[in-house]
Every structure is written in structure tokens, then in C-alpha cells.
């Protein structure tokens, strides 16, 4: 359907919906939600907070609040060391990679720890990590960022631990990298990295799902098997997107359901659920990057666009009546997935082609920390801005660990990897490849921060 017809159709649907909704009665604002009532509650909260701070000054230590951030950053530090080490892993033997990576990262971590006390960041080292070491943002720094972009995450930022603890550890990792590179001269020069798995909290993987063709069914688009079930998606121009469920290779589907207008790019069986991954590359999509300066009117329309990935999870407890239970959207392009015990790891990529003028306005090459669909404001140094201005394109990969267990609150933990990285998944590991790492002195442009981030699913 052409864009204008689609808009007209939408407008008609809106008109019809307004007629339906005009029957709904008025809603009244509760008395507890007046400004006066809310300010009274705010005053009470501030008073309690002041009393609490006074108690802390008197010597009461919240043990878990003190140590949790340290342990979290320690996990991040170990991961960084493993990535920067450049182990030169033999890709023919993936089964050995995890144990060797763990052993090397442990050695490297042990070697790096004594250096943490001596490491001193210098201005010459203008990488993002060095910036964090030099000018570790204070607790109130994020609050100074424009509230327009960051307000939805304000509470979490204010609860996050002091970032100056990570500075010395991150600065020392550079020296640790040099040390471990010296130790690995005999390793392959190809830079392969195994990472993320430990940082994603010991994810256990299911047996791999298999993709195979059903010879009886011609014209398959996507077919995924899980035990005795086969899930098939047919993509026919002009036809609705339909997912069919077959059992025991029968020729007649047990059931089928229509999904969406967007193109389905993957089907992920998750036990008694099925995740349907849709990719939308609408040209009108607007990239929500980190802006350095406010845009003039009209400039927003000139910004580059990226697509969006929507994952819809269907409950298959009753095969004959699949039921939609979850749905979340993330911007970017879908690459791959790995099912986990409680959900899945999703790999998406953002690639932006920019004009020089647009590059001067956007600094999305710098890693950002995301919470769900909200981008937490990231403090940027002048060096970072200079490094990315004038470039014509940036690309980075997002790894999302999505927990769909349904027992507790669903959570989505993300790692954002820097540009020129490729991600390959095997049944039991995630490989982060940077073929240009040697050109960059073995330092991929990546910063992981999974410590304190527990985000909402949608």
C-alpha cells in the first residue's frame, strides 16, 4: 500500500475510533494528584531523606550499597581485560575458547591488579576509557545533562554508584593490555575476542535449535524447528504476514496467526513460547541519537534514519490458540539471536551514514548506556567529540540480554559495543570480532557497563 493510501487509511481508522470513544464518560482528577497535595508529599520525602542522610553521617553504613557497585565494576573490569588482551583464539576449536579465555582473563586480571594503584591517566591517551579515568563524572554530573533527553532515567542515575571508582581500574587496563599483549606474541595476529557471557551473569544456553527445510512445503521463507514443532513464516508480497505452526512434520498446520505489517526476520522458539522478530526499515523513522547541540528547526528532518526491531512473544501453551503476551521494540537492525534459559540474547546493529554537517551534530559513535528505550545521558569529553566529528559514518552493535521468564519482573540488560565490530554466535558462545583491532593498537572502541543497569523490558 502506498504511503498516501496508508495515511488516509489511518486517518479513517482514527475518525472511526473517535466515534467509538465519544461514548466514554469523563474522568476526574483525584484530590491526591493536585499540585498542592503532591508538593506536600514531596516535602515529607525530602524531610525523610535529610533524616536518613543524618543517620548515615552518624556512622551507619549500608553494607550492600557500598559493596555492590564495587563487585559490579570488578566484573566489568575483568571483562574489559579479557577483551583488550587479544588472545588470538583459534576459531577451529570453539569448545576450548571459553576455558582458555577464562584462564587468560584470570591471569591478566591478576597481573593487572597490582598496577591499579600506580596507573595514572594522561592527556595523550584520549580514548573514551582514558576520559573516564581523567574526568570521572561526579555523582551529580548526569543530572546536569538536558532533562529533555534524560529525565525518564533520572531516578536511576541518582541511585547509581559513584563513577570515580571505575576510573583507576579502567586506566590501568591499558597497561594490563600492553602486558598481556607482550605475553601473547605467539598467538595468532587475528583479533578474536570471547566476551560478554560472564558479564551477562552466567547465562546457560539451551541446546541449539535447528533450521531445516521441510521438503513437503515449497516456498519456505523461514522455517525453525524445536523438538516436534516446526514454525514457518511465509512472506508473500501483498499478503498478510502469517506464522504457521506444524507438528510432527504434518502437512497441515496445527494453527496459524497473523503477526504484523513489518517484515519478519526470525522466529525464536522459547520453550512454550515463540518470539517473532520483526524488522521495520521505515524511511520516516528518526534516529534517537545523543545530540551535542540543539537542532535548528528543520534539521531534525535531515537526520539519518535507522530501522526498528520489534520482538513479539507468543504463548503457545495452547498450540491452537497462540496468544501475544509480550512485545518490545528497539531501534537498529536485527542481526542474530541466541536463546537462553529465561529468554534470549538479541544482537542488533546501528549503522549511520552521515554528511559532514550531520556528523558535527551527532556523536552517536560514542558508546551510550541504554535503559530500555531510553538513552541515559552520557558525559562526553571534548576529545571524544573531536574524534567523531567529520566522520561519514558510524556503526555499533548492541547486545541485549532479555529475560522473559515471567516469574519476576522482566529485565533487559544491554552491552553496547563500539564501531567496526562484528558479532558471531555459536551455540554456546558469543564472539566479538574486531578485524581492525591491530590497526588500533589492539584496543576496540568498546565500553561495557552492565554493573548497575537493570532495565525495564518495554
Amino acid at each position, binding site marked *: 500500500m502506498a504511503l498516501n493510501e496508508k495515511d488516509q487509511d489511518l486517518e479513517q481508522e482514527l475518525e472511526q475510533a473517535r466515534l467509538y470513544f465519544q461514548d466514554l464518560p469523563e474522568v476526574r482528577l483525584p484530590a491526591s494528584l493536585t499540585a498542592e497535595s503532591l508538593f506536600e508529599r514531596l516535602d515529607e520525602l525530602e524531610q525523610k531523606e535529610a533524616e536518613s542522610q543524618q543517620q548515615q553521617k552518624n556512622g551507619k553504613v549500608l553494607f550492600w550499597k557500598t559493596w555492590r557497585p564495587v563487585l559490579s565494576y570488578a566484573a566489568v573490569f575483568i571483562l574489559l581485560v579479557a577483551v583488550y588482551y587479544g588472545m588470538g583464539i583459534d576459531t577451529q576449536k570453539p569448545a576450548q575458547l571459553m576455558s582458555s579465555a577464562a584462564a587468560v582473563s584470570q591471569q591478566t586480571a591478576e597481573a593487572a591488579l597490582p598496577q591499579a594503584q600506580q596507573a595514572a591517566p594522561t592527556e595523550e591517551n584520549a580514548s573514551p576509557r582514558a576520559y573516564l579515568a581523567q574526568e570521572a563524572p561526579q555523582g551529580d554530573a548526569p543530572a546536569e545533562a538536558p532533562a529533555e533527553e*534524560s529525565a525518564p532515567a533520572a531516578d536511576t542515575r541518582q541511585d547509581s554508584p559513584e563513577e570515580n571508582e571505575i576510573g583507576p581500574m579502567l586506566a590501568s587496563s591499558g597497561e594490563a593490555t600492553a602486558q598481556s599483549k607482550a605475553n601473547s606474541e605467539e598467538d595468532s595476529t587475528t583479533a578474536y575476542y570471547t566476551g560478554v557471557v560472564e558479564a551477562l551473569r552466567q547465562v546457560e544456553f539451551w541446546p541449539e535449535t535447528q533450521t531445516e527445510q521441510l521438503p513437503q512445503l515449497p516456498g519456505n521463507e523461514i522455517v525453525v524447528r524445536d523438538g516436534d514443532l516446526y514454525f514457518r513464516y511465509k512472506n508473500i508480497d501483498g499478503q498478510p504476514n502469517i506464522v504457521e505452526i506444524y507438528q510432527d512434520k504434518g502437512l497441515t498446520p496445527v494453527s496459524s496467526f497473523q503477526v504484523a505489517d513489518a517484515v519478519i526476520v526470525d522466529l525464536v522458539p522459547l520453550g512454550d513460547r515463540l518470539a517473532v522478530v520483526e524488522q521495520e526499515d521505515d524511511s520516516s523513522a528518526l534516529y534517537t541519537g545523543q545530540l551535542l547541540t540543539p537542532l535548528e528547526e528543520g534539521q531534525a528532518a535531515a537526520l539519518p534514519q535507522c530501522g526498528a526491531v520489534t520482538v513479539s512473544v507468543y504463548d503457545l501453551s495452547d498450540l491452537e490458540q497462540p496468544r501475544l503476551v509480550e512485545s518490545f521494540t528497539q531501534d537498529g537492525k536485527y542481526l542474530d539471536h541466541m536463546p537462553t534459559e529465561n529468554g534470549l540474547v538479541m544482537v542488533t546493529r546501528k549503522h549511520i551514514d552521515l554528511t559532514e554537517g550531520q556528523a558535527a551534530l551527532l556523536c552517536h559513535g560514542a558508546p551510550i548506556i541504554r535503559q530500555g528505550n531510553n538513552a541515559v545521558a552520557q558525559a562526553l569529553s571534548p576529545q571524544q567529540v573531536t574524534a567523531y566529528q567529520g566522520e561519514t559514518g558510524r556503526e555499533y552493535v548492541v547486545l541485549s540480554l532479555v529475560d522473559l521468564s515471567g516469574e519476576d519482573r522482566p529485565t533487559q540488560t544491554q552491552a553496547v559495543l563500539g564501531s567496526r565490530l562484528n558479532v558471531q554466535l555459536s551455540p554456546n558462545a558469543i564472539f566479538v570480532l574486531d578485524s581492525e583491532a591491530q590497526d588500533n593498537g589492539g584496543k576496540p572502541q568498546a565500553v561495557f557497563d552492565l554493573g548497575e543497569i537493570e532495565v525495564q523490558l518495554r
Partner: protein
Amino acid sequence: MLLSRETIAKAKGGDRQAFGQLYESVALELYKVALYTLGNPEDAEDAVSETFLEAWKGISGLREEDSFRPWIFRILSARCKRKISGYIKERGNIDLEDYLEEGVEDRSPRRAEVLEVMNRLTPEEREIVVLSVLEGYTMREIAQIKELPQGTVSSKLHRTLKKLRQMLND
């Protein structure tokens, strides 16, 4: 009430009265959107009060006075998301009859039908429908509030309205 730049500037400077005026100009809208999205008034009140507090803390950083509305609705949307994520199995059944305006003599069957159909939508679908149909926000404004691509918002709304119409016509 029109939001004057002067009021917004005062609120950014920490003037409680000015912020109170700003909030009161959108309070009912915020509550309606939260109520229909979350389906129960207790959570809607929580979401709106949390939005108020967060907006008060962050308004000093508001760049453009004209973006106050999408900004505060973005906060509300994030708050609603957190509430929704706790619903998992239960889909936040709407139970609005007890809390809507009393004394409406003409309790049309159509109204009950519309509420029942709304109940069958997901909270995210309800939120987009309420913002668009009840509150009159454009696709672009909803995209800013939800921090989604505009095309995604348009597609989702289109699908949801079609679903609504089909359910009401069945």
C-alpha cells in the same frame, strides 16, 4: 490553559507556584492516559505522582519551553512502562466503571463494549490509542513521547485501530 513561556521559565528557576500551574494544566491528561494504559486507578495515581516528582526535579534542564508537554508525557510513559512490566501474566485488566463519573444516566451498552475491547489490548496499545484518539497527539508527538520511530508508532496505531474496529464489529 496555554503554557506561557514566562511560567515555564519561572518553573525552571525553581518557582513552585509556576511549576504547579504547569502541572495542573496537564494533570488530568496525564491521569487519563495513565488510567487507560494501566487499567487501574491506584497504579495510575502512582505513575502520575512519580511523574510529577521527576518532572519537578528535572525541569531546570528543560531546553525548549515548547517541549514541556512531550517531555512530561515521556516521563509518564516511562513510569507506566515500569508498572506494566510488573503485570506479566495479568494484562492489567481495566476496571474503570467504579471510578468514572457517576450519575451518567445513559450508560450505553456501547460504552461497556468499548471498555471491554480496550481491556483486550496490551497496555502499550492502549497507551498509543489514548494518546492519539482521546488526547489528540500527532504521530510525531507520540513518537517523541514513546521514543520510538515515527513509522513504528504509525504502524502500531494502525494495527491497533484495525483490531479495535474488528473486535467492536464482531
